[in-house]
């Protein structure tokens, strides 16, 4: 009796646990075409979230760009792994003498993945589309960010924050193979910016057919009502969309009509695994072939296990921001004292992965206009103490803020950075008061509205132009005044002029000059440029990391 009922206990318990498996005894009757064979030609790569949209004109985040870079191409591209412009859909171009007119010769025989032809009319259609975005949603800086950053305003002015004037004037078709873009002013940044994912060429037929720009007019709940952005993105790139399963994966398949070298893999799957540890385990278990945003602490472990780690060239800057509206940071001697007091060398060596560099100015060396001879503030606590004495400031209390719940490429562990910097500052006589907030949204909100006295922040470049670094910070009053409490009309003017300068040599010289001026003024202390890492299985070949995430998977294969 006892034994039999004990056995029944076990049986019942087991049957419960096995109930899940029970339903699955049926054998598949489908031809298993998706298994074995095709796994060699499918790359599964893990990113951290869904793309925001597959219409590149409206995205500026890494996850969207990862996908759209493989579906679309621009008039110009970047040489893999660099920020050097090279021909893409335009084979050559000439600028008019005054720098306001660009004539593009277009590649012949290129078709969009829907079969329609790419020609000058299609190119101009795209320019006109961007310029004619209507309504506050499309003109919101969270959607048409790049257009506003590079070209400024739109044909109509529907959003208070959109710039009022536009760099863009018109686009005209000379013949099917020639398009002429006219600007309202000379711009040195124009050509390079055309390599941005947002300015990729999209099929006019598909844009119209699937209502790419149609927004539901519903009050305070605007949304896209067409199906272009999530179901029918159409470009000329090596891959096209197969399907996007929200929350899970985006599947791309090779575009059979691609004009260039055929992609080596038939299918690309971008899986969405938001948790860093889960991404790591998925690679270790082989359920993905690679992943992005490798945490710095995992780099050594993964290398030890024989995985490939590829670094993107440094294209960001981490800095300590000084808010000059809050004394004593309005005193240049105090700002300099802080700069001398912080051991940036040690900080970078201790807390950042291999390959990270100590920053001298607000942009990385890879960007044109980087000045090697800015005022440097090499670690010197004695000098810091002297500067404090000279400043005459007696209240040396500084409130220093750091964000929590976040890891940025330039700041993998903010609290650790904060602690080292704090102890450096205390060594020279400052009293540091702690302040911390959750990164999203509190910290971002407070840092950008001048709530902090001193704070940790950084910036990852979108494109290889100095205007995208120091211009973003100091060209208009938005960031310079609200974040740094610093208003210097001279610097703003210089930055606007440098941005417009069409002559490359003059432009470079102008930016170098500005960098020197900024580092003398010292609105903040840049301390690091880091290299973000990607991890791959050892047999994955052909991936070229790009500083601006201009990464094509068409050259990737299994070795």
């Amino acid at each position, binding site marked *: 009796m006892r034994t039999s*009922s*004990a056995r*029944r*206990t076990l049986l*019942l*318990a087991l049957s*419960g*646990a096995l*109930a*899940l*498996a029970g*339903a*699955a005894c*049926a*054998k*598949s009757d489908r031809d*298993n075409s*998706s*298994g074995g064979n095709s796994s060699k030609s*499918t790359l*599964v790569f893990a990113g951290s979230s*869904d793309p*925001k*949209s597959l219409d590149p004109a409206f995205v500026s985040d890494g996850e969207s760009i990862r996908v759209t870079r493989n579906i679309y191409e621009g008039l110009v591209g970047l040489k893999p792994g660099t920020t050097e412009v090279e021909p893409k859909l335009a084979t050559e171009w000439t600028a008019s003498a005054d720098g306001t007119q660009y004539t593009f010769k277009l590649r012949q025989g290129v078709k969009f993945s829907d079969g329609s032809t790419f020609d000058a009319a299609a190119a101009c259609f795209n320019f006109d589309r961007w310029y004619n975005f209507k309504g506050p949603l499309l003109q*919101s*800086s*969270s959607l048409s960010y790049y257009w506003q950053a590079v070209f400024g305003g739109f044909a109509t002015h529907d*959003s*208070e*924050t959109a710039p009022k004037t536009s760099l863009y004037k018109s686009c005209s078709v000379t013949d099917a193979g020639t398009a002429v873009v006219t600007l309202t002013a000379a711009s040195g940044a124009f050509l390079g910016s055309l390599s941005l994912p947002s300015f990729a060429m999209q099929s006019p037929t598909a844009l119209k057919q699937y209502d790419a720009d149609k927004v539901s007019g*519903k*009050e*305070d*709940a*605007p*949304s*896209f009502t067409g199906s272009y952005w999530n179901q029918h993105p159409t470009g000329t790139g090596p891959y096209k969309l197969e399907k996007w*399963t*929200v929350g*899970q994966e985006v599947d791309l398949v090779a575009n059979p009509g691609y004009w260039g070298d055929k992609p080596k893999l038939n299918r690309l799957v971008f899986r*969405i*695994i*938001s*948790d860093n*540890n*889960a991404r790591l*385990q*998925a690679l*270790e*278990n082989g359920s993905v072939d690679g992943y992005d945003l490798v945490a710095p602490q995992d780099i050594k472990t993964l290398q030890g296990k024989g995985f490939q780690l590829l670094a993107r060239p440094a294209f960001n800057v981490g800095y300590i921001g000084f808010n000059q509206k809050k004394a004593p940071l309005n005193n240049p001697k105090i700002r300099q004292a802080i700069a001398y007091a912080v051991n940036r060398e040690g900080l970078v060596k201790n807390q950042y992965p291999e390959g990270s560099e100590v920053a001298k100015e607000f942009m990385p060396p890879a960007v044109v206009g980087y000045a090697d001879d800015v005022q440097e503030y090499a670690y010197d606590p004695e000098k810091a103490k002297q500067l404090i004495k000279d400043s005459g400031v007696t209240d040396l209390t500084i409130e220093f803020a750091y964000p929590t*719940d976040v890891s940025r490429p330039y700041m993998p562990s903010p609290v650790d950075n904060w602690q080292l910097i704090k102890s450096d500052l205390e060594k020279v006589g400052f009293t540091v008061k702690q302040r911390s907030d*959750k990164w*999203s*949204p*509190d910290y*971002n*909100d407070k840092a*950008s*509205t001048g709530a902090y006295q001193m704070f940790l922040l950084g910036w990852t470049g979108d494109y290889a132009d100095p205007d995208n670094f120091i211009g973003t910070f100091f060209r208009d009053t938005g*960031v310079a005044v609200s974040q740094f409490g610093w208003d210097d009309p001279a610097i703003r003017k210089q930055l606007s002029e440098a941005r417009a300068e069409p002559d490359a040599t003059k432009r470079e010289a102008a930016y170098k000059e500005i960098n020197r001026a900024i580092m003398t003024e010292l609105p903040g202390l840049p301390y690091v440029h880091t290299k973000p890492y990607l991890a791959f299985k050892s047999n994955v070949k052909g991936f070229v990391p790009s500083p601006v995430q201009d990464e094509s998977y068409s050259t990737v294969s299994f070795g």
Partner: protein
Amino acid sequence: MLRFAVRRLLLLVPILFGLSLALFVWLRALPGGPAAALLGERNTAAAQAQIRSLYGLDQPVWVQYWKFLKRAVRLDFGTSISTHRTVTSEFFTRFPATIELTLAALIFAIGVGVPLGYFAARRHGTFLDNASVIGSLLGVTIPVFFLAFLFKYLLAGGVFSVLPDSGRLDPRLIATHPTNFYVLDGLLTREYDASWDALKHLILPGLALGTIPLAIIVRITRAAVLDVVHEDYVRTAEAKGLSVATVRRRHILRNALLPVSTTIGLQTGLLLSGAILTETVFAFPGVGKFVADAISARDYPVLQGFVLIIATVYVLVNLLVDLSYGLIDPRVRLR
């Protein structure tokens, strides 16, 4: 019974109204807002103001609430600020995953929990009983994320590599999804290997998520059975010569199931509201993770919509459980 059901459903109205009001005020009292979250490092005061006006967040709270209410009665919860999709479509693309996961966890918790609790009580004071009590204590106290990582380490890569570690389906497997319930989809489309693969993906998260309900069900079942076995009617039934099996099935188990079904109802509601930790560890695309992300993004429409839908589901599940009392216990049916 119908009147009871109708009354309970009517009760939903004040519940949802109160909840939506509290939520509305509370969300807006949180520091920061969707604009700051959306903009990140690109945050400027002007850009924030633009986004606030775009989503009507610059209006007085009561105006916002009134607009929200007007839409919500038509089951329109607006558009997610971070994804630009409608809140209802965001919910219904994710909810099937959550339901599948909940079912997996429940099948495990009930299938193992009820028998284990029953036999622990029948063998009161024996090794089995003690083991089940200690085991269920452990089950309640071990944090889910730890258990999840442990299961993953043991069965999905670390020691044995028999089960998948994340997701709902092997991305290399091409399958069609008419209903978004992946196990069911595979059966409907006769892609049985997809069904099987989806099931395999449910095992580890199901085990991890089901452990706490399992522990609770074991304890409740055990306590209920212990109560019931000493009742007079059980002794009477035994005395009048009913077979052991009949006494156990009809008199003990059936009466003991009443408190157990309440527990199951409450647990089901909890599971359906999304298992943030389990979903995070197993990269399982359910509603829980999405809601958690919506909090740090201050995605007001998503939070408002999801919480209300989940609350409704919670109330409905518990109503179903209450109605099931009638099936288990005729005395309840009369009232």
